[in-house]
């Protein structure tokens, strides 16, 4: 039960601070999101720049890059995910403790980017793990990563503790482990996790509409 904003301001004037458990909980969570320390390609350089003094990701409570997935809350997929690397990325995601979030940074991580039609690049990491925020760009500027981070904070702030749309870590029945693709003779097996990446609406007709 949220407190009405007007009432909250009025009470604040009287020196009374009211909040909800939900708000307090999410306020704490969203301001100490610790990213995992790993980079995949050139986007990682922009990610590093974001953490340094000029852009200063520490303002958002995310200055501590953890070198272990066990201690990290956020995975920034910073760069091209090759098919050879994809199983390791999914395995690292599996090793992270809930609640965990994923930012897919840059054209390669969200779709394969300029390497999309290559034989060795995954067409977006969202085929195997759920992605919370996608950032376009090649590479995205640090401001874009900060924007993605703020978007994630807004998303965390809006998460309810109960009900159908509660996050995975509060849902005992939610799927916690995602199948790690196996490298096989021609491609990764399976090539896509349909539970995470259902075929986007209109995919079957995409393209024909534009050319017709």
């Amino acid at each position, binding site marked *: 039960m949220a407190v009405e904003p007007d009432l909250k301001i009025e009470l604040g004037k009287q020196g009374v601070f009211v909040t909800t458990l939900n708000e307090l909980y999410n306020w704490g969570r969203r301001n100490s999101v610790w990213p995992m320390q790993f980079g995949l390609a050139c986007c990682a350089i922009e990610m590093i720049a974001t953490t340094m003094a000029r852009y200063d990701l520490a303002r958002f409570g995310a200055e501590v890059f953890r070198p272990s997935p066990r201690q990290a809350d956020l995975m920034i997929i910073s760069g091209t995910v090759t098919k*050879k690397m994809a199983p390791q990325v999914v395995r690292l995601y599996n090793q992270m403790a809930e609640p965990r979030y994923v930012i897919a940074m840059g054209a390669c991580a969200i779709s394969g980017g300029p390497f999309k*039609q290559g*034989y*060795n690049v995954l067409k977006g990491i969202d085929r195997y793990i759920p992605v919370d925020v996608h950032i376009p760009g090649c590479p995205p500027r640090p401001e874009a990563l900060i924007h993605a981070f703020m978007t994630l904070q807004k998303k965390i702030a809006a998460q309810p503790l109960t009900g159908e749309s509660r996050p995975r870590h509060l849902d005992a029945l939610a799927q916690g482990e995602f199948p790690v693709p196996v*490298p096989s003779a*021609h491609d990764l097996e399976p090539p896509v996790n349909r539970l995470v990446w259902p*075929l986007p609406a209109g995919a079957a007709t*995409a*393209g*024909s509409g534009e050319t017709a």
Partner: protein
Amino acid sequence: MKSAEELVEELKSALPGVDVALVVNPSPSAQHSLRVAAEDALRVAAYLRDQAGYDYCSNATGVDWLDKETSEKVKTTRTVSKQVDGVEQMVEEVVEETVKRVEPGFLEAVYHLYSMKRGHSDPHPPLVLRMRTENRADRVELPSLTPVWRSAEFQEREIFDLYGIVFKGHRDLRRLLMWEEFEDHPMRRDYVDPDDYEYEPTPHDEVLKRAEEHRAQMAAAEGAR
């Protein structure tokens, strides 16, 4: 230092019986290359390193040459039965026929050799050395030049990975870029990548073709059910 033409002559006189040929590059750069038979490659490579001064292999790569079909018009004479003045007779006739010939394809390993000793004072460009396999399917072995130029080690592994040339005498011939379980050779010209064209938001050209093929297949599978 010597040009490629002179080097061919030098090799032939220094190593009698060696199978070396000049591959002419008709472009203005005129960077001709040396083609050497697989069985003579190690001898030639050792000579080039020790006597001709090519002490560094700066690059090694592969080329895939598909089967080449050439058609030619040939005139032949044949005896044909024909009605001549109402009587069946055997008459010789000149017939023009199209003869198709298939030149078998092959895989080629290309090495770029450079002389660190001579460096920029060398008036000739880096030397290009080529070796060809017998075909593209099962006889794809070539001798490894890693014992001569150590820098070829990883590049030969890359050629093995992407083109499927098997280098005999290589110390550690494993795939370099693709995973171990992978069976194809992606840089071959007949490589077909996996059909994951189910979602192409902005298809064009080749991608559009593949996406349409994928949709047609999906529609056919839908119809069969």
